[in-house]
């Protein structure tokens, strides 16, 4: 093989990488460009390929005319609540599934696995009925409870996989040193599975932030709408200009992406350690 053909192969590969990155980035870039395009050039041919900085006012306008801030705040509450509740619920069962052999363990494992297959859209009707009976409709807390039901199984599963990797010796050492079982879980095991805790936090957070069907169904009060429902309300609606809708889309997407980029190292490690090696 000559140096030249090797160089050409390398270039080809770089071009392919660039192509993949471009494809991955383009739709989000396009959302951003559209949000910063004047009403006049929205329908221009060819479309404007670069953002127009003079249009930043669209964002200020969106905040004034549309309750974007409130939507984002609600989404943040739901996402954070889902994260905290999911982790609080998942840690001890994950430990039990990893360390104990008990009657019903198989059934529990099957249950955790099977519940990952139930679509939210399917349970939305009975959940609505139950929530109506106990007065949890139109409450962000209720929405958190519903979301958590869909995150807890996968999170328990991932954490179990991570705890499987903690050497038993270390727990026994803590046992000898006088730690209780709860103490072992909280002060020895949890610090050792920190990457997976980070990963599962992100998974729960994203679920809460992105979730649409439950929020759409369980919340009808305007002031409690989440950003996903708010943004979805523009679909098929023609009176709001496209650039304003895209601006809201950017405001809704940007925090998620920024958060993801901050923690992606952990997410990738945790996801692959737990869910897939399984």
């Amino acid at each position: 093989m000559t140096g030249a053909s090797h160089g050409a192969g390398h270039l080809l590969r770089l071009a392919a990488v660039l192509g993949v990155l471009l494809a991955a980035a383009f739709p989000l870039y396009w959302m951003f460009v559209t949000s910063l395009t004047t009403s006049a050039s929205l329908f221009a041919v060819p479309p404007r390929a670069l953002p127009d900085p003079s249009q930043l006012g669209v964002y200020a306008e969106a905040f004034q005319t549309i309750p974007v801030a409130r939507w984002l705040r609600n989404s943040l509450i739901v996402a954070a609540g889902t994260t905290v509740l999911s982790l609080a619920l998942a840690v001890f069962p994950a430990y039990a599934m990893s360390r104990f052999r008990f009657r019903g363990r198989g059934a529990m494992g099957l249950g955790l696995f099977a519940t990952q297959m139930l679509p939210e859209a399917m349970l939305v009707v009975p959940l609505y009925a139950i929530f109506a009976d106990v007065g949890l409709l139109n409450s962000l807390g209720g929405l958190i409870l519903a979301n958590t039901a869909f995150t807890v199984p996968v999170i328990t599963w991932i954490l179990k996989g991570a705890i499987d990797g903690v050497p038993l010796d270390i727990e026994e050492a803590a046992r000898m040193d006088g730690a209780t079982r709860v103490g072992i879980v909280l002060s020895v095991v949890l610090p050792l599975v920190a990457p997976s805790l980070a990963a599962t936090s992100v998974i729960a957070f994203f679920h809460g932030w992105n979730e649409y069907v439950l929020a759409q169904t369980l919340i009808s009060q305007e002031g409690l709408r989440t950003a996903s429902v708010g943004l979805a309300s523009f679909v098929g609606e023609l009176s709001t200009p496209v650039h304003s809708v895209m601006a809201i889309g950017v405001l809704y997407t940007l925090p998620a992406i920024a958060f993801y980029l901050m923690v992606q190292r952990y997410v990738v490690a945790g996801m692959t350690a737990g869910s897939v090696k399984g």
Partner: protein
Amino acid sequence: MASIKLAGVTRAFGPKRAVDNISLDVKDGEFLVLLGPSGCGKSTLLRMLAGLETLTDGEIHLNGSRVDLLPPSARDMAFVFQSYALYPHMTVRRNITFPLIMRHHRWWFHIPLIGHLAKRRIERQPDVAELVDRTARILALTPMMHQLPKTLSGGQRQRVALGRAMVRKPEVFLMDEPLSNLDAKLRTAMRAEIIKLHQQVGGTFVYVTHDQIEAMTMGTRIALMRDGVVQQLGTPRDIYADPVNTYVARFIGTPPMNLLTAELDGRGGVVAGGAVLGLPGPLASLQSADKAVVLGVRPAALAIRPAGEPGTLAGEVTLVEHIGAESLITMKLASTRTLHSEDGSAADEVIATSPGYSELSAGLQVGVAVDTTDAVLFHPGTGERLW
């Protein structure tokens, strides 16, 4: 003051008995070594002492009171793991202090920030800090108190594990093959340190190993185990000189004791491979002529003579190994059977040690002279010692 009494201790995993009805006493201040091959139940026995494993049957007493139903932390025993089992997310200081923090532990220590502060306060209490610092000085850990375990060498990690055991000032130290993850040189050094530790700190030590050199050098007594049963319990000297059966005889000593099939001649001697060998006083009184026995002799009791010399066993040198101070000479005997079947190969081969650099070479026909002064006799069927 810490004496341990095991009475009928048994641990079954399904139909298999990992530890089978073991009763023994460990005296105060003793260094007892549980010795045996992999799977002999020695670690299981130690873990039952610690409370990390439940007993299927039997009782454990510490200073006369029963402890086998108590949780590990209530038994006043410290455990050193083969893997060291240090807490990877804690500094050396926190690792060593951890058992002391646990003594003062309250449920609210689990609350993130408050618990953190509370633990740090305990760590900084004068008595606690002083004890930890003193322990660290003894173990030469002072310069690395703020490091994490992953930055330490194997020997340093080992010393942190010892430190964590020492600060508790336990009545009993339990150690599960603590040196087996170290390289050979470090292992010898740490061996000496643990012996010194036992002399300085006192307390009763129970130490598990599969390494007979560790057992011989460290233990005040050795319990040699096989298949969940103690074969022999005694001082290193007893076990070496007076093995109770062929298993113990072959397990202790490198190279192992040679076991030759022989017959009593009824006149105070044995016949092996055509040669008549005299027996020392107590053995000579064993009467009954033509009775088959197994003659056990250490490699140093075999001497190499020219082939055909009277009173020697005919053999051929098959391997010569030079290890510096002495040479190991493996020979295949012509007309004498051995009982070395457990080794698989090496059937009818014996090993002799000869001082210095041996000039013998493989293929040479020799005569093997047997010094029976320290010889022992075993029953050929049961392998039990004859006396």
